[in-house]
Structure formats: C-alpha cells, structure tokens
C-alpha cells in the first residue's frame, strides 16, 4: 500500500525536475515509466499518475496564483467560462494534468502486466 505514496512522490518530483528542460507532456512519460518500474495493482495505477501530477501542478499553479493576487487566473476563468474564484483555474489545471498523468501511469502499469510481472 505504501508503495503508491512513493510512486506519487516520484512522479511529482521527477516531472518537476524534467519539466524545466522538456515539454509539458514529459509528465506522461514519467508516470508511465514509474508504473513500469514499480508495478502494483492496476486498479490503483491510475491514481499514482493522477495524484503525482495533480499535487505538483496544483501547488505550482496555486503558489503562482497567490503571488499574482489571482489577477490572471480570474481573466483566464472569464476566457474559458469558469467561475471567477481564486484557485478554481489552478484546480482545473491540476485536474487536467492529473488525468493526463493518470493515463500515463495506467498505461505503464498495463504494459508491465502484459509480461505478467
């Protein structure tokens, strides 16, 4: 059970490091690779990627949002027809990132399962 926390932490940490030099979709590859490496229950594998990216993107966007006095996120909310409340856009950002990350980790897990490991 504890392994999922390790996976989440690794996905968040490694994605964070690699995003400085690689495009945003590296998060999918990181999530994929971590699941491939560690494996585990398929039913939980989506959540390692999901939470890994969700937590990291939410914190990153949230801190920026806070330091910006929520100025830009309110405008982006208006642009995309979202409620103009603090952190809503950060939450949506993190959700989208989470889903992508989750898809990555699920795929990684399924890849490993193909070889019955």
């Amino acid at each position, binding site marked *: 059970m504890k392994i999922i926390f390790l996976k989440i932490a690794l996905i968040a940490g490694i994605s964070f490091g690699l995003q400085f030099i690689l*495009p945003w*979709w590296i998060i999918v590859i990181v999530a*994929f690779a971590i699941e491939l490496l560690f494996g585990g229950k398929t039913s939980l594998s989506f959540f390692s990627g999901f939470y890994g990216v969700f937590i990291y993107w939410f914190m990153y966007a949230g801190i920026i949002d806070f330091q*910006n006095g929520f100025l830009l996120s309110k405008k982006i909310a208006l642009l995309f027809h979202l409620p103009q409340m603090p952190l809503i856009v950060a939450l949506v*950002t993190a959700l989208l990132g989470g889903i*992508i990350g989750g*898809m990555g980790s*699920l795929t990684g897990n399924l*890849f490993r*399962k193909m070889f019955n490991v």
Partner: protein
Amino acid sequence: MKILRFIISLLLTVGLVFALNMKIGMLPPVGKFIDPVNGFWQNAEKLEPEILPELKLNVTEASKIIYDERLVPHIFADNMHDLYFLQGYVTAMNRLWQMEFQTHAAAGRISEIIGEKAIPFDREQRRIGMLWSAENAVKIFSEDTLAKQIMEAYSEGVNAYINSLTEKTLPLEYKLLNYKPEQWTTLKSALLLKFMAKMLTANERDFENTNMLNLIGKEKFDLLFPDYFPNTDPIIPRGTVFDSVSVKIDTGKVTTTGKQITYEPIEKTDAHIGSNNWAVSGSKTLSGKPILCNDPHLKLSLPSIWYEIQLNAPDINVYGVSLPGSPGVVIGFNDWVAWGVTNASVDVRDWYEITFKDASKKEYLFNEKWLNTTARVEEIKVRGGKTFYDTVYYTHLGPVVYESNFTESGAKQQNLALKWTAHSPSNELKTFYYMNRAKNYSDYEHALTFYQCPGQNFVYADAHNDIAIWQQGRFPARWKEQGKFIMDGSMRENEWQAYIPQQQNPHVKNPERGFVSSANQHGVDETYPYYYLGIFEHYRNRRINNELRRMQNISADTMFRLQNDNYNLMAEENLPVMLEYVNKNELKNDSVEKLVLDALEKWNYMHDAEMIGPTAFDLWWKQYTTFVWDEFEDKPYKLIKPHPSAVLRFMKEFPNDRLFIHQTTKDRTPKNAVNLSYDAFYWTGLKINELIIEDEHPQWGFQNAITVEHLARIPAFSFNNLVTGGYKYAVNAVSPPNGPSWRMVVELGNKPKAWGVYPGGQSGNPGSANYTAFVEKWAKSEYYELLFMSRENQEKGKYVQQIIPVK
C-alpha cells in the same frame, strides 16, 4: 486481452496528449497553455515587479535604466545607439505583442495569426497600399544616415529582447494564439507609422458626398454640408494675414456621373477621433511661465497605444509618451520646450475613377493617353489554409483599390484609385528626433519641416515664454471643392498639381490673445488663400477658446479642470430651440415626460457621470436626428448625416422644410420641426422610463460607460464598462470607444513640472498588476506628477538596473 487493454490505454493517452498539444479552432493547445511551468501561469507576474539589478546587453557603453514606482523607465545612456537600443529593449519587454500585432495589422498579415476570416481585412490593407508605402518608407530611412542609425539601434534592442525569450517567457497572447514573434525590422517601424497615418487620415467622405450630391443636388448639398459653419473659431485666430498663393494650379470642375457608389467604404476613422491641445503664455499664468496641455483622443485600447518613457543621453533629456514600435517621444517635454499634437483632420485622401482600356487592366486613360499600370501581387498567407494572392493595379495616382477583383460579386462598377499622402515617402522620424532635442522656437520650426503625414497641429511652448502652433503636414493645393466628390481620374486638372508650400501651412507664434489652441477645428478662416477640405470639429474647440479667453492666473489645477470639462456647447446651442417646441401644458404633473423636461430645463449642459439630464438630451437628440434625416436611412449606398449645426440652422430658418416630414412611419401627416421634436421627446420619456423600470441606471456615467478593449478584442483582457462622464462634443471627449488616450499638462520654467495619465498601464501583460494600473485614476480625472529626472537628480527612482555591455 492484456495486450488489447494496453493498446487501448496507450492509444487513449497518446491521443489525449496530441489533442492537448494542438490548436483546435480558437482554442490554444490546452495542455501547453495550462502547463504551470511554461504555459500561461508563467505570465502571472508577482505583484511586486521583479527587475534585475543588472542586465548584460549589446550596448557600447555602460548605461542605466531607472524605473519609477509607476514603472516608467528613465533611460540614461551615453550615446545615441545605446539610447535607442534600450528604448527598443524596454518597450519590447513591456509591449512586444502589441508592437507586432499592430504592425501585422498594418501590413495586412492578420490571416497568418487567426486564419481565413481575416482575409477581407488583410486584403483591404494591402489594396490601400499600406505595405507598399511602408516598403517605400524603408528606402528613405535607409538612405538617411541619421534615420538609419536610429531605426537600426531600436530594432537591435527589440531583437535582443525577442532573442532572450523562451517558451516560458513568451508574452501571453503568443501562447494563447499559439504563434511566435518575428525579428523586428525597420519595415515594422515604418508600418507602425502608416498604421497611425491611416488611423488619423482615413476620414474622407468622397463616397458619401458623391452619393448625397446625386441624391439631393448641389444646392441642397451646399446648404446641408457647408465648408464653414457659422461661429467657426479657427486655430489661427481670425484677422491673421496670410501670404497669397505661391503655386499655380489649373482649375477643374466638380462633375459627377450620377452613379451611386454602392461599394462598402473601406474601414474609416471615427469622426470623433480628435484631440485637444493648447498653450497659454506666461502673461495668463500664475507662475508667469507658459503651460502646455494635450489630450489626444483615440480609440482606447489595452495595451494602451502609449508607453511613457524618459530618454537621456548627452544631447537629449526628454520625457513623454512614445508609440511602441517607433523610436523617440511623440508627445512630451524636455528641459526647455514642450509640445503636443492634435489631428489636422485635413483631407489628404482622394478617390479617382479609373478607365481601363480593357479587361487586362494593363492600361488606363489619363490626359487623352493610355498609360501603363503596374501590377503588384500581394501574397496573403493564411493560417491553416491556402495562401491568398491578390493583384493590385497601380496607376500614377495610386493603387486601384476597388475594381472587379475586389467586389464580392465581381460586379462591374467603377474602378476607384486612392491618392493618399501616406503613399509618398517621408521621414517623420526626424521630426521627433529634432523635437525631442529642441531648445527654442527655431529648433521646433526646423523639426516640423520633416513632417508630412498624418497632418497634425503641433502646439509648442518654451521656457523663454514663446508659444506657437503650426498645422503641419503635406496638404494638396486644391481648386475649390477638388476632391470633395469622386473625381474622373482621366482628367489632368483633377490630379493633385501641387502641395501647399510648407512655409504657408497655417501657423501662429505668440498671438495677442495670449494662447494658442486646437481641437480639430478649421485651421484658418475663409481668407486663407488655399482651398482645403476636412472633417472639422465645431464645439469642443470653441468651448476651449471661450474658457481660455476668460481665464487669468492659470495654474496646472485650472488646466486639469479644463481638460476634464464636460460642458456640451452643442446642447447649449440646440437644446433651447428644441425645448421651445415642447408644449409644457400638455404634460401631466407626475409623468416621466414632466420629469425629463424638468431635468433638461435645470440642466447646466454638463455631461457629468451622476446626472440624468445628459442621458435625456443624448436620447432626445439621437431620436430627433433619426426622425429628421430619415430620408437618408436604409439606402443601398452610404450617406453621412448632416452636422448638428446644420440641424440647428434648419430648425431656426426652415422649420417647415420637407426634411421634417416623417418618411419612415406610416404616419404621413405633414410634420414640421415642432412636432417632430415633440415626437422624439415623447419617445425619450418612454426610453427613460424603461431605463428606470429595468434598473439600468439612467445616470449619464452608466450610459456613457466605456470599455477599454484589448487589441485582439478578448473581453477577458479588456477593462469593461468604466463609468465616467464626458461627451463627444465636450472637451473631455469620452465617446465610447474613443476618448482622451493621454492627458498631459506641462508647466515650463527653470525646471519643467508635468502631470499626466492614460487609461492603461506600463505593462502590456494582462497578467501584471501594471496592466490597467492607471485606468481608475484616469476615469476619476486625476493625474500623476511625472518624474522628470536628470543625470544629477535620480533619487526618486524605485528600481535601478545597470546595463553592462557584452564584450
């Protein structure tokens, strides 16, 4: 089974990533855009600006940029190259997207960014010769050593910034629209000047006048559209003696083929783009030194059209507003002089009917000979679509904008060529170069000699107590009414044969009345020896002159009040006549009509935000003129309705004229000015009642609320519904979407003191707190004291940035 599971999951994941990395319709690539590390989040600036204490750039000597608390950069450089390099750099840092977008618009390249729906816009720019004339201007700039140096240094600075950009630091709009900036070039600066030229001179009415002439005949046309209205108070005071005509022109004749022009006129300037400027001599001020004021009225936009800046080098110390994309300061002051501009509003665009020999359009008739056209193929690249090619035929008069290629149906109509002073090469850059460094009146006069288009009224004041105004530009010397209507392009005498010699452009220095002023009115009275055309303002300018004549012991405070004056002289002249027509006895005591009448009778003609009187007047006036000019509505061709002053004249002199017969309703009973006015009044009562019932704030400030719109018309990046007073005919000409785009007051003296404000902010980034930092102050008619630094006095700077040369 396991393989299938994996493959489905893999395909879904890859598909999702691709979808989120792609621009779909108007959406940006969503994944890329929301990525907190490189996407839009990186444009959300910290509230406290982060300005690096040191910057390594390609300057030749160590320089310094000091930012004050409003983020105005004060650039201290040791030579001309470094000065304009740094102006380019800081301007790009704050306004890059705007600079490039405006020049893309001028060049007719918007389709490259937003796709095929911009093709009609782009074609129009190309066909009126925007890109062509900018390319010609580049030749002039590259042949002139001074202009070349300035342009190149500025471009280098802009490019230094562009080259430093990464995915992460790219301005927000590039991320949203998913494209990248190009290298800056002299062509782009030239395009920006053409952009301004178009904005300020596209006010001709050749199509509308021709249609009106065909419709109502010359006699009525002259009554409704006179060259001068009564009480005209020209820029150059009446009584000034002018030299007689010094160029010879052969007179032609106003002719019309009688054919209505059904073309949709190309995008034109709003008639209420105008400006105020004035300077009062020391004899009228408290300090004994002149005060100069300027507020150019333009379409208000975000990022603002202006960027505040101070430029300092050994031969220059100037403060003012610049146009992002063009080096130098356009409106401002230095240690000795101050200057400002308003639009001359003189017509410098004429349309000629062209006779092609045959469908090949290779030859056209001129002076009984067939001359060759030049074909220019315009390549319009389209995002996500096929490149569009458009051939434009050029005659010696100018590009044939309208011909069968350009009409929707390809229908056979007139071929119309545009003659425009912006087409001829000129070097306005030098005007601003010399003006920024001017020390006295003769420097100012010299600077003006380089200026051609768009024609401007340059107001001037200096610390030696000289004040002056020149209407400067290149203006055609016309025979009477030449160019008021579309002309036959085959007749030699119809072409522009000469220009008004620069020395004969209207000007006055130190007039007896102790002030000079302009607000887009006539430059001169009827005694001026040259005929000219234009769309001239009739109310603001007289209000300013009336106030300035009356005022003594003027201080900066008095000037702030005048710049923000909401007095409507049009209402003062027209409303009493309209009120006479209302039969007061017919109104019930507690009716809305009675309420409206009371509000109007008590009204002091001020368009203040909290009043209801101005709302009632505006509604009444609009409805009344709609009734009066209903014979000009719903025509399949364009017409322009006569000026309020013409309405007044008809109300007073011909109240029973056919004009006052109601044409559009079924009610065919004969009407006159009296019952037409009353009908409109009754309608106004209903309308006000509606506003009250629907809780829509009948107060003027709400009715006149202005939106400062983002350049790409993105509502989320606009400042919406700013409640404020003002009116198109008031000095404070807030007339949505136009308004005072920069208010400046400069008090000359041993050390100039200045105040200013514009409805925007120094940062062009919608994610910055400085994007709209000045808007509310502007709406409240308040000013900032401008921080004019010197080499010795720089204490008040907030952030200091050392610029270190890269070896």
